[in-house]
C-alpha cells in the first residue's frame, strides 16, 4: 500500500490514524491486535512498576503517620525551588516525549530525533539538579552512612536564622516530657493554626523527641549484677538523639525513593538512546513501526507520574 493511500484512507487493516504502515509479526492476525497487545503488555508492566513504587510509598506514608513531626522537620533540608524546577523539567520532557511519538507515527525522522534529544536534555537536566541536591546533602552531613543531624541542623540555622542559639524559633508546646508519646490532642495542635504558629511550621526539639512509636530501648549493653540480675539500661535516648535517629529514617526513605526514581530515569534515557541510535541507522524496527517509541513513551510518562507524586509528598510537607 502506498504512503499516499495510507494517508488518504482507512483501509481495514492499515494503521489507523498514523501514516506509516506497520508490519505484523507472525503470531498476530492483524495490526490492531498487535498494537493492542503491545500497549496492554506495556501497561501490564507499568502496573508492576506501580506496585513497585507503591510499596515504597506505603513505607513512606506509614512512617509519616507515625512520625509526623520528623517529616515536618526534615523537609526543611529539601530545597523547594530545585524540586519544583525538577518537576517542571520532567513535565517538559513528558510533553517532548509525546511529540516524539507523534513524529514517529507520521514517519518524520528529524522530528522524532529532535524531540527525543529534547527529552534526553531534560532528563540530564533533571539528573544534574538531583546531583546538586545530593551533593548539598553530602556537604551538610545528611548522607547515607555518614549521617550527622546535628551538623546539618547547625548549618541550617546559620543559613536561615543567622546565628541564634535556639534553633526553632517557635513557642514549644507546654509540658511534653522528653520521651512520652504524642497524644491525639498534641497532634491536632501540631497542625492547627490556632496555636498561632508561623506558617509553614517547624517543630521544636521536644516535639520531635515526643514523636516516636515503639522505640526499642537503647541497645547499650545491659549491666549485670553479681546476683545475675540485669539492671535496666542507661535510660531512654535523649531528645536530640531520638530526633537524629528519626531524621535518618526520613532520609533513608528520601534517598531510597529519589534514588530509585533516578535509576528509572537513567534506564529511560538508555532506552531513548537506543531508539535514537536505531532511527539514525534507519533500522526497520523503528522506521516501519512507531510502537517502540510509543512504548518507551509510556514508560517515560510513568516515570514522570512517580515524580508528580514524589514532589509534593517529600518536598511540600506542611
Amino acid at each position: 500500500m502506498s504512503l499516499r493511500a495510507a494517508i488518504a484512507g482507512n483501509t481495514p487493516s492499515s494503521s489507523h490514524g498514523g501514516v506509516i504502515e506497520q508490519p505484523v509479526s507472525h503470531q498476530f492476525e492483524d495490526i490492531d491486535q498487535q498494537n493492542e497487545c503491545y500497549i496492554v503488555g506495556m501497561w501490564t508492566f507499568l502496573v508492576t512498576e506501580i506496585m513497585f513504587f507503591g510499596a515504597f510509598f506505603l513505607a513512606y506514608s506509614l512512617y509519616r503517620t507515625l512520625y509526623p513531626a520528623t517529616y515536618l522537620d526534615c523537609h526543611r533540608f529539601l530545597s523547594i525551588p530545585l524540586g519544583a524546577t525538577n518537576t517542571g523539567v520532567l513535565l517538559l520532557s513528558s510533553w517532548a516525549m509525546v511529540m516524539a511519538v507523534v513524529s514517529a507515527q507520521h514517519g518524520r525522522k528529524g522530528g522524532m530525533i529532535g524531540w527525543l534529544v529534547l527529552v534526553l536534555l531534560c532528563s540530564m537536566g533533571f539528573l544534574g539538579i538531583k546531583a546538586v541536591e545530593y551533593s548539598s546533602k553530602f556537604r551538610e552531613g545528611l548522607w547515607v552512612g555518614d549521617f550527622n543531624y546535628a551538623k546539618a541542623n547547625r548549618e541550617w540555622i546559620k543559613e536561615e536564622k543567622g546565628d541564634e542559639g535556639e534553633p526553632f524559633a517557635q513557642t514549644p508546646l507546654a509540658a511534653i516530657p522528653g520521651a512520652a508519646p504524642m497524644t491525639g490532642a498534641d497532634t491536632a495542635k501540631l497542625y492547627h493554626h490556632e496555636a498561632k504558629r508561623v506558617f509553614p511550621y517547624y517543630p521544636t526539639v521536644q516535639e520531635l523527641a515526643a514523636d516516636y512509636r515503639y522505640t526499642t530501648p537503647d541497645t547499650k549493653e545491659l549491666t549485670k549484677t553479681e546476683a545475675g540480675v540485669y539492671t535496666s539500661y542507661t535510660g531512654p535516648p535523649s531528645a536530640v538523639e531520638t530526633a537524629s535517629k528519626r531524621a535518618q529514617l526520613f532520609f533513608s526513605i528520601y534517598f531510597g525513593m529519589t534514588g530509585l526514581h533516578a535509576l528509572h530515569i537513567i534506564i529511560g534515557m538508555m532506552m531513548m538512546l537506543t531508539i535514537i541510535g536505531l532511527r539514525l541507522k534507519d533500522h526497520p524496527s523503528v522506521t516501519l513501526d512507531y510502537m517502540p517509541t510509543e512504548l518507551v513513551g509510556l514508560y517515560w510518562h510513568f516515570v514522570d507520574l512517580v515524580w508528580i507524586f514524589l514532589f509534593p509528598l517529600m518536598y511540600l510537607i506542611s
Partner: protein
Amino acid sequence: MEGNDNLMSVQTYDSPHGAARSASADHGDEQENSEGMPRFHYLNAAHTIKSWLLTTDHKRIAILYLISISIFFLLGGAAIGAVRIELTSPKGQFLSSEAYNKMFSAHGIIMVFLFLVPSIPATIGNFVLPLMIGARDLAFPRLNLLSWYLYMIGGALVLGALAFGGVDAGWTFYTPYSSVYSDTNVAIALIGVFIAGFSSITTGLNFIVTVHKMRAPGMTWFRIPLFIWAMYATSVIIILGTPVVAITLLLVVLERTLHIGIFSPELGGDPVLFQHMFWFYSHPAVYIMMLPGLGVINELIAANTKKRIFGYSFVAFSSIAIAVFGFLVWGHHMFATSQSMYSSMVFSVISFLVAVPSAIKVFNWLATMYKGSVEFSATMYYALSFIGLFTIGGLTGLFLASLATDIHLTATYFVVAHFHYIMVGGSLTGYMGALHFWWPKMTGRLYPEGPAKLSAIVLFIGFNLTFFPQFIAGYLGMPRRYHFYAPEYQVWQQMSSAGSSILAIGMIIPLFYFIWSLKYGKVAGPNPWGAVGLEWNIPSPPPTHNFDTIPVVTWEAYEYQPHEEIEAELDRESIGAPSSAQGASV
C-alpha cells in the same frame, strides 16, 4: 515486530518455505517418518546450540525451562537431604549449626523462588498455553526468551551466593537479622531473587496478553480450558504481587550495603513492616505456586474420566476468587508478631474464606468423576493423590488460620507439614502429573505406564511418611528450623527422614524412564489419551508454527459428549451412562 527483518537476526521457523510445505501437503506418508513420528517438528527444526539459545519458539523455551528447573530442583532436594540426615539425631550428625541454617535456607530459597514459582507456568504453561487456545505463539516471543535468561541469571546469582558462603536468614529473610546482623551472602542472594522475580513477571505478562488477545476465533472466555483460567489467574497474581517483594528485598539489600535503614528499630523503623511487605507478596506467591497445579488437575480429571468438568464456571471463577482473596490474607503469617489483635482477627476471618474456592474445585472434581469413565492411568494416580493431599493440606491450614490454635502451632513443624502438603502433595504432584500428561505432546513418545504408576505410588507413600509425622511433632510443640531439638521428638523426625528417602526415590524414578522414553518410548501420535482440546488435534511433537490452520472454535470446553446430547440428557433428567459418552476417536 519480527517480520523478515529481525532485530536479533534470529532464525525464524515460520519461513514461507516451511509453511508452504505443510500447507500444500496432505497428511500423507511424507509427513511422517518410518516410526510414525512427524517428519518436521519443533525439536528437529534446527540443531545448532544457537538455535536453542536464541530461540523464540515457546515450545523450545519450555524445554529450556524444564531442564534448568529440574537441575535447581535436584539441588534444592540435595540441601534438604542434608537437613533430614541432620535431624535424625537431636544433637545433629555432621553439620555445624551455622551450616544447618544455611542448608535449610538454601532449600527454601531454591525451592520457592527457583522451582515452585516457575515450575508449571514456565514449563507446562509456556508449552501448552498457546496450543490450548489455538495461537501460533505467545504474544511476545522474545520477551519469553528474555524471561528464561533472567531466570538463569537470577538462579546463578542465588546459587553462587549459596555455594560460596551460604545464606542463613531463611527464605523469609526476616529483618533485622537479614538486614543487619547476618554476615552471610544475603545481598547477593536477594539480588538473584530480585532478577528471578522479573523473569516471573515477564512470563505472567506474556500469558495475560496472550490469553486476552490471542485466543482462536470463536473461543470465548467460557470455552477455554480450565487450565488456562488457572494460568490467567496465576499471571494476574504474579503481576500484582511480585513487584512488592522486589522492592522489599531491594530495601534489605540497601540496608545491608548502604546502611539506609527502613526496617531498623534503632531509627524508629519497624521490622514488622518488612514482614507486612514481604508477606503481601509471599502469600499470593503460594497461590502462584498452587493455582497452576489446580489447573492441571482439571485437565487430568477431564481426560481420565472422559467427561466435562462439573460446574465449569464455578471452577473458573474460583480461580479468580483465589487470586483476589489471596491478596487479602497476608497477615495470617504474622499472628505471633506485634500486629494488632484487631487486624489479626480480620485476617483470620478472610483466611477462612479463602479456603472456600479451593474447596469448590475439589467438590467439582469429585462430581466430575461420579459416573465418569474413569481410567486409572498414571496421570490419574497423580490427580487422585493431589486431591487427597491437597485437601489435607488445606484443612490443616484452617488450624493455622484460627488465632487461638495458631498461637500454639505457629513456627512449629505443623506449619512445615501444612505447607509441604500443599506444595509437594499439591503443586509438585500436579507438576509431575502435568509432565506425564503432556510428555507425549512434548516429545512424541509415551513413557512406560508401569514404572510411572509405581513412581506415583512410591511418591505418595514416601511423601506421607515424610510429612505426616511432622504434623504430630509440630502439634507436640517442636519448633521449626531448629538444629538441636528435645529428644522426645526424635522418633517423629526419624520417621520423617526415613520417608524422605522414599520420597526421593519416587522423584528419581521418573527421571530415568522419561529419559529412556526419549529414545525407546512408544510413538504417541497426536492424541494418546483420547482427550478433547486443541493441543490434541496437532501432531506430537508439534510443528514450530503449531497449527497449519487456526481452528474456529464452535464447541464448549471438554466436549467429550456433544452438547446436544448433554442437553437432551438434562431434559430427560437421567445422567448419561458411560457408554453414551463419545470416547474420543483418535
